[in-house]
């Protein structure tokens, strides 16, 4: 559905990306793996409009897509959950979900419409938060991650990108978030997860794309691939 082809990006002397490719399809979770500095974040940023690539093309449904700002990406249905979540701790769940896209008429907020939509969305995703009117500061790490992911769905995107969604979480909360990612797949979204955690990747992804030094270093169907093969691709050791 969405393809990035031959993406290159230089930062001064650093070749962050050197002809990297990425394909995402509806109803599929792709894990993007690679060592630190492999170019994962940069590749994702070109798709989400934060970084403009030096070369390469991005196509959506076969047509070239012009993505130069995060706003472009959002209006094309590409939604990103950043590693730092970017939530306002002082605002409640409803306010965070609709931040910047508040339902309003002549600037007057429609609190009821937003709260109804929030409850519906959280129910669909099976996210349990006892009181959605308390500031996000009082929620657990897993709940916050869930709020950030739910927020990515507010604009009805087709593609959701998650940067290290489980990095800061404990075992139980990681399981909750992985469940949530499966539910995104069930909603027929194209999902891209950046992760360092092989166990998580094997638990949730359909496909693994490995980057190494800015280039594709392997692509695997998760179910048919051994952990060793993925590690070998990441480190560059001949498998």
């Amino acid at each position, binding site marked *: 559905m969405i393809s990035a082809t031959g993406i290159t990006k230089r930062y001064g002397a650093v070749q962050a990306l050197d002809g990297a490719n990425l394909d995402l399809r509806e109803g599929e979770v792709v894990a993007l793996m690679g060592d630190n500095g492999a170019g994962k974040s940069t590749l994702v940023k070109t798709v989400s409009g934060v970084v403009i690539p030096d070369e390469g093309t991005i196509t959506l449904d076969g047509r070239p897509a012009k993505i130069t700002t*995060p*706003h472009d990406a*959002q209006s094309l249905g590409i939604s990103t959950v*950043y590693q730092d*979540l*970017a*939530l*306002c*701790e*002082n*605002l*409640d769940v409803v*306010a965070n979900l609709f*931040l*910047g*896209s*508040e339902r*309003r008429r002549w*600037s*007057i*907020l429609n*609190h*009821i*419409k937003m*709260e*109804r939509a929030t*409850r519906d969305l959280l129910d669909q995703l099976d996210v349990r938060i006892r*009181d959605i*009117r*308390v*500031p996000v*500061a*009082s929620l*657990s790490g897993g709940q916050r991650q869930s709020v950030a992911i739910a927020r990515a769905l507010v604009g009805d995107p087709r593609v959701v990108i998650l940067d290290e969604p489980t990095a800061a979480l404990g075992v139980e909360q990681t399981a909750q978030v992985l469940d949530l990612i499966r539910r995104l797949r069930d909603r027929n979204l194209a999902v891209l997860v950046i992760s360092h955690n092989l166990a998580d990747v094997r638990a949730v992804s359909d496909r693994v794309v490995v980057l190494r030094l800015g280039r594709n270093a392997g692509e695997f169907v998760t179910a048919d691939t051994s952990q060793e093969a993925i590690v070998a691709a990441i480190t560059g050791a001949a498998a």
Partner: protein
Amino acid sequence: MTVLGMPYKLDRLRQGDLGAWPVVGGLIAIAVVFGSLNEHFLSPENLTNLVLQMAATGTIALGIIMVLLLGEIDLSAGSVSGLCAVVMTILSVRHGWNPVLAIVVAVLVGSAVGLLHGVMHTRLYMPSFVVTLAGLIGWQGLLIYLLGQGGTINLPFDGFIAGLSDTWLPPWLAWLLVAVLVGAYAAAGVITRRLRVAAGLPVKPSHWIALRIGGLAVLLAGAVVVLSADRGVPLLLVIFGALVIGLDLVLRHTAFGRWMYAVGGNAEAARRAGINVTRIRVLAFVLSSTLAAFGGILAASRLAAVNQSSGGSDILLMAIAAAVIGGTSLFGGRGRTYAALLGILVIQSITNGMLLLNVDSSVRFMVTAAVLALAVAIDSLARRGSAR
């Protein structure tokens, strides 16, 4: 955020967010202490004076809240209030302008000053502390320059501007105002509840709404009874109250207000959500200086004059202290406009009570400082308590 259910309140209490309760408790303590030390303190006449004394600084505190919500500060509010009062007075007295026009221009001067502060802060990346410290000194200088030789300009006692602080609502109008306010509050509560039920959202028990409506009615009626026993409800209180209520509605029910809180809570998150953070910041400084101008005009009206110390001495510090004592967080993103009302009530009661008791102003400063320190301590602890 219109509907704060009981469980929600309790939850917040458990998280250490005490809301307005410490201030309300403090006010009751002040009333009891000064009331028992001096029988005149709680008399209608003195309470009316208290209301007149607090309107101007309270309005300036309201402006301070606008910048505190973003985690910024405005040290120039006192000077700007004095400057705008002088502009108004010069236009109306020396140039014989229509007083209303003079007020409008003075308020616009305030807005322009705020715009300048906002642009310096956002475009030149100057910390708000420095921008407004320069403003504190510079606008004071301009004020003295404009006043020139005489140093004092009197406003005619029977004129429109001085009349603002010597106008009292007739009883029927005061009661009508109470009826309208309580009626509007009740209608909003009932309609919101109906709409929530229709949308299948949880609602708080109806006796809880009734309790709040009743509480508001008792509070307002009590105020009218007390003030009517003296000269009546002062127009100054109505102006200040309208600003507090109006800005609270804007902050809680408009996208602009939501974005103020968002920028104060996490500016980077707000930016990524597509909010124009720069515009919000500039607007906050504009609001602050505009409200300072309002406050300066009210102060000039009460004094029926402007002079070199207009907007000077401890006005700025009291306005900041009022905002913080009332419960506005210095860390940004938390606080409501009612903080200006509650905070200035605390400060002005202490000042007024100590003057009645003939206590030296040195003691007054120390007591006010202790109250301020306590308020900031509560804020800091609440912040720690809520961040997990």
